[in-house]
């Protein structure tokens, strides 16, 4: 799966985790642009550079006016990010975990996402919200949710959700340079996995999916942590003689319709796989669009896999059942292609 370094300029490859890639991107962005700011709970080195250490070293290097730890007050974190962004800075605000953004939804939705439009273009809000989430660590009902669907449904904010280390770096660099608000989602099952990142990895454009594995029988459309799940499923399917193409959206909104439609037109079948809930979830937009655009060209209905309709459970057995597993993808594909 080091396909994540495909078509990158040849050159030295560095082994680093998604977290290492995020840290590297922050260093590079702050180095290149004095307007870039980093702040959030415990992010400064006095506080250990983040509870996960993702921002370690930044305040020592760039000073504690540009890298600031904040009180536990997400509305004030987002408010400060909005004002600073409108004043010409590029704040990268950390909301420690995605569930905590629920106390700052007004700032994100009514303000960050709308101020440019409501001001007729006079206001710009070039901020990035970095937030970590994902099930798998038994942190249960209030620390693991994938709520990207809410923000994809909110006009005026982009949503990025990488899986591979190189994408974590390249997409964060682009998110920081972007003139509009970007929600950058770090998934707890991919963030700490080592991968290869070109030493000279630069920005990777937002809104572009990547085919991480080519195939001809079915297209698996996914992003974030579920990209691993789909890649694993594709491997199993290959052994059973079924050729699955895996498309990693990387950006959830705006999503790469072209790449997805081209792939599904080729394979004639699609399964959309998200960690987010299936019901009224982000996968529905993709499934609904595919059937609209490729009506009559599909060999089977577009299927969706996502979290069941319940909170994230604590017990490991339940958490495993809650998360879509490779076997679920395989079973769904088998049914589609009329096998198994």
């Amino acid at each position, binding site marked *: 799966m080091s396909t994540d370094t495909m078509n990158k300029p040849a050159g030295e490859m560095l082994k680093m985790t998604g977290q290492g890639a995020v840290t590297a991107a922050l260093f590079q962005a702050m180095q290149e642009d004095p307007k870039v700011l980093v702040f959030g709970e415990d992010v400064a080195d006095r506080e250990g550079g983040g509870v996960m250490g993702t921002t370690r070293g930044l305040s020592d290097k760039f000073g504690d006016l540009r890298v600031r730890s904040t009180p536990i007050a997400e509305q004030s974190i987002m408010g400060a990010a909005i004002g600073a962004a*409108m004043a010409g800075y590029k704040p990268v605000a950390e909301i420690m975990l995605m569930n905590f953004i629920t106390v700052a939804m007004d700032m994100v939705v009514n*303000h960050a996402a709308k101020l440019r439009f409501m001001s007729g273009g006079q206001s710009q809000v070039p901020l990035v919200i970095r937030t970590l989430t994902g099930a798998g660590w038994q942190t249960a009902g209030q620390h693991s949710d994938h709520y990207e669907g809410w923000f994809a449904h909110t006009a005026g904010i982009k949503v990025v959700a990488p899986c591979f280390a190189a994408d974590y770096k390249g997409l964060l660099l682009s998110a920081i340079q972007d003139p509009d608000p970007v929600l950058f989602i770090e998934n707890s099952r991919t963030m700490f996995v080592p991968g290869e990142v070109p030493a000279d990895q630069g920005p990777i454009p937002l809104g572009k999916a990547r085919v991480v594995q080519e195939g001809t029988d079915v297209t698996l459309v996914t992003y974030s942590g579920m990209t691993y799940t789909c890649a694993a499923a594709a491997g199993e399917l290959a052994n059973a003689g079924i050729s699955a193409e895996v498309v990693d959206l990387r950006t959830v909104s705006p999503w790469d319709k072209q790449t997805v439609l081209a792939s599904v037109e080729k394979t004639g079948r699609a399964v959309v796989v998200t960690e987010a809930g299936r019901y009224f979830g982000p996968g529905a937009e993709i499934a609904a669009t595919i059937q609209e655009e490729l009506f009559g060209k599909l060999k089977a209905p577009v299927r969706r896999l996502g979290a069941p309709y319940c909170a994230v459970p604590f017990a490991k057995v339940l958490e495993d059942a809650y998360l879509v597993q490779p076997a679920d993808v395989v079973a769904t594909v088998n049914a589609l292609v009329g096998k198994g």
Partner: protein
Amino acid sequence: MSQATSNAASPDAETQLDIFRRMLRIERNDDATRRQIRQGRITAPYYSARGQEVIPATISSLLTDDDKICTIYRGIHDMVAKGMPLRPLWAEISGRVDGTCKGKGGPMHLTHPETGVMVTTGIVGSSMPIANGFAWAALLDGSKQVTIAYFGDGASNIGAFHEALNLASVWKLPVIFVCANNGFAEHTRYENGTSVDFISKRAIGYGMPGYTVDGNDPFDMYAHAHAAIERARAGEGPTLLECKTFRFMGHVFGDADGYMTKEEKAAAIEKDPLPAFRAKLIESGVATEEQLAELQQKIEAEVQDAIEFSQSCEYPSTDELRRDVFAEEIAA
């Protein structure tokens, strides 16, 4: 808590006139706005600030265009006081493309960066956390710029107030939190929603100076605003100013006022700060009747010009729905 610093600053004659000019511009503009609405020429929710003119007029007399304000739905007086031109303002509330927001924001989201009108929010409390961001930027820039966060008494009970004042104090931000305490939050009387007798006391919980000021008295307002702004410019951090006032026209245009007594309303209008300050200026010889009459004519002409301008403007094209969502226009 109403005492300002011993060596309280006082506005000189010229400043007094400047404050009055801003007050009158607010009042004449408000009067014209309500007339246009009554005549059905404007269809928009309107939250008159009639009676609250002294607060932004006095504060604005101490600010430059570089200083910024974040205000609320009841904030047109704050903008007019800050110096926002009336043509783009009227074009906006009339939903025209020449409006300051191209007709997309309307009266609740008026914005005019050139004069420091950065954010107008319709969400109670939200002006405060955003004001901190501008103040933080000023620190980073090393400028002496200050940011004013305007809000109401009811807004002092919402979470954003608390988070914003705490952060501003911990970070020593150059921001002034200006609470227009008009005694009501929509239909709810102050004491039925607010647990403390003086909102200024809440400053104690943030290690921040807080004062309760007579929001109808330009001299008391000036002394406290001057001290707070100096403090902010000197890098000593934020101040909370609770400015006691009254809104004469109820919460929103058309409000029946059933939740207040005729007596208290009459009593408040009795103390209307505009005629009172006008009389004082003449008494004290700061201005003559003629000067002020002339000033009024000039202002009324400016308002009339803005109204006529706005009526001559085009409505926005529906393409505007695809513009300003992002920097890059969305494809049709």
